């Protein structure tokens, strides 16, 4: 009996230790699990800060549109701050970003904070925001489109005609006129979008916007490309103020960080064709087949092609 009582006491002690260990483990793991399932917790309404640092490329935009979808569907998120440092990218993905932000702005306040640049495609993305906050050094504007096409493709139309047996006269043809017309159309969509969302604020005419100037933050506030000089907290406060579900400073802030490559990849990085969110497309070349690339690519960018030659551009003053 005495023995049995001792045994019971030690058994109880061991159970206590095990239970304590289990609770500690659970306390460590459960929040992580909880935050995976629900990015925000707590009862307060939340301002979500979404970040885009880098080009408006397929991968970046895809991640951001997923974050924006999450912000729209999460009941506790009442406003969004779009923290951006982007000088644009391909027109197609820039339009994609615009549509995602436009949709979000239709459902809740969206305030953009221009951390570095919101130029060209980057500005395309934030233009439907309710307000745009900049610093003096922010770069805003550069509304327009450029085309990247090998010159020889355009100039050697005759040679192209001999490359394939073609089914029609326009098949596999690129002409300077068609590229220019496409550029004009894409410009119309871009400039039209800026005028639709910022026309009332802008001091500039449609033609002046279409010139494609880039503006510093201070100039942008004056000409209506941006609304206010401020910092990230300014943008968060403005977003909270604009939400009818948030009273005073009774709100939480949650950050959706822009992920990089998080997993080691079982293939060489040069084989990666594109990345969309967590989906990585890998090019598997087949030596028996001719490979094709898009001959003409339209970009809404502010910048010059990154290359060896451009790395050492010097400005020389005569005299």
């Amino acid at each position, binding site marked *: 009996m005495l023995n049995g009582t001792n*045994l019971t006491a*030690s*058994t109880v002690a*061991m*159970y206590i230790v*095990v*239970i304590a*260990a*289990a*609770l500690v*483990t*659970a*306390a460590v*793991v*459960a*929040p992580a*699990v*909880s*935050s995976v*399932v*629900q990015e925000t*917790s707590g009862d307060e309404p939340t301002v979500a800060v979404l970040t885009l640092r880098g080009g408006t490329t397929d991968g970046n935009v895809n991640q951001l549109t997923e974050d924006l979808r999450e912000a*729209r*569907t*999460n*009941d*506790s998120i009442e406003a969004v701050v779009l923290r951006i440092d982007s000088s644009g990218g391909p027109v197609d993905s820039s339009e994609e970003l615009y*549509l995602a932000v*436009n*949709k979000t702005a*239709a459902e809740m306040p969206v305030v953009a904070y221009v951390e570095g640049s919101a130029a060209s495609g980057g500005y395309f993305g934030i233009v439907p925001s309710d307000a745009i906050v900049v610093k003096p050094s922010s770069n805003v504007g550069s509304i327009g489109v450029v085309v990247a096409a090998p*010159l020889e493709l355009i100039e050697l139309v005759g040679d192209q005609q001999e490359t394939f047996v073609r089914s029609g006269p326009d098949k596999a043809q690129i*002409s*300077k*006129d068609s590229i*220019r*017309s*496409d*550029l*004009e*159309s*894409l410009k*119309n*969509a871009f400039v*039209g*979008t800026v*005028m*639709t969302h910022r026309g009332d604020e802008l001091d500039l005419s449609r*033609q*002046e916007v*279409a*010139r494609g100037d880039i503006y510093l933050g201070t100039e942008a506030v004056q000409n209506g490309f941006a609304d206010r000089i401020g910092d990230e907290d300014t943008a968060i406060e403005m977003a909270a103020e604009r939400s009818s579900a948030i009273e005073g400073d009774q709100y939480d802030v949650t950050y959706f960080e822009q992920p990089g490559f998080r997993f080691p990849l079982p293939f060489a990085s040069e084989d990666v064709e594109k990345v969309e969110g967590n989906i990585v497309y890998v090019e598997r070349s087949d030596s028996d087949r001719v490979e094709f690339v898009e001959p003409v690519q339209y970009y809404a960018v502010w910048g010059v092609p990154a290359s060896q*030659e451009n790395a050492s551009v010097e400005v020389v003053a005569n005299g």
Partner: protein
Amino acid sequence: MASPRRLIGVFVVIVVLAVGGAAVVATTATDSGQADGAQISGQSPQQFQPDAVNHQADPETGEIDVDASDGAKRILVDTSHGNQISRSDVEPVVEAAFESGHSVEFGTSGDRRSSYAETISNYDAVLIVQPTSAFSRSERNAIQNYTDAGGRVVVLGEPTQIQAALGLFGAPSAVSFGATNLTQSYGFRVGAEMLYNMNAEGTDNNFKSIYASPSTDDELTQGVETVNFDQSGYVVVNEEHDDADDIEVLYTSVDGTRTLETRREGEYATAVRSENVVFVADSTFIQESDVYDADNEVFVGNLMDFLVSGDLDDSFPTDTGPATEPPEPPDAPTPTPTPPEPATPTPTPVGESS
């Protein structure tokens, strides 16, 4: 003593319950209970609709008509001054001239046997497209005498532009109109900048592809409402020039046209005529890619008519007479009374040499 197996079992059960519970709570908090479809709503922004976006370029229609009433004429296309023109660029124009019985030849001034004056004396008209090297004094004199004697000359030129680097180690370079010294002698020169227009109705398919309209009633503006210049500059006229009264502005840029660097808005002269010389501050409108834009084909037809309707008289020396004096050296400072060589009555030019 509790068995280790039982203790591990308790540990696992508690961890699973706690973590699972947290997940369930979080899931419940997130899930609004709506079907996915309730959150789907498409958008089709007004400014993305085809009417707001699609650009309509000028249709490329029409024909180049060249007058044949004055009989068959020979036109020389200058190729000896680094001219930025190739035969294929002007094939439609050559074809139209051929249909009317005229011939267009690509020639050079400068072989050893003949002077520029001798060369051009074999032709009824001279077309000089975007020369990048200068005309020597004797060449300028030859052309001056040529037009004084009724020969017709058309000069097409563009303002200085930066040309993209070619090749791996190429550096961007400036390309300049080289015949300013030639046109200046007639009282005009190409302006310093290119032109652009941001009004949709002021251009074809690019801000630099500007429109110009006739500013006078002349044989060179007949039948033309709008011409399209793809690389246009403007013409500056010297109003103090001796022949200033003879200079006629043929075309001016439409409203909203500005200079590319300094953004000065204005109505810029893009083509002028002084008696037997026409100067256009663009060299692309005559090329295959642009010749059917707007009314370019009518203007080009008018230019060809202008060229073939000249009447070079005997006051300009030809090479058909007997040689009494040696040919003038190429850089002779005086105007050309270039005496011909008797043994070489054949026309020299032809052949694109460089």
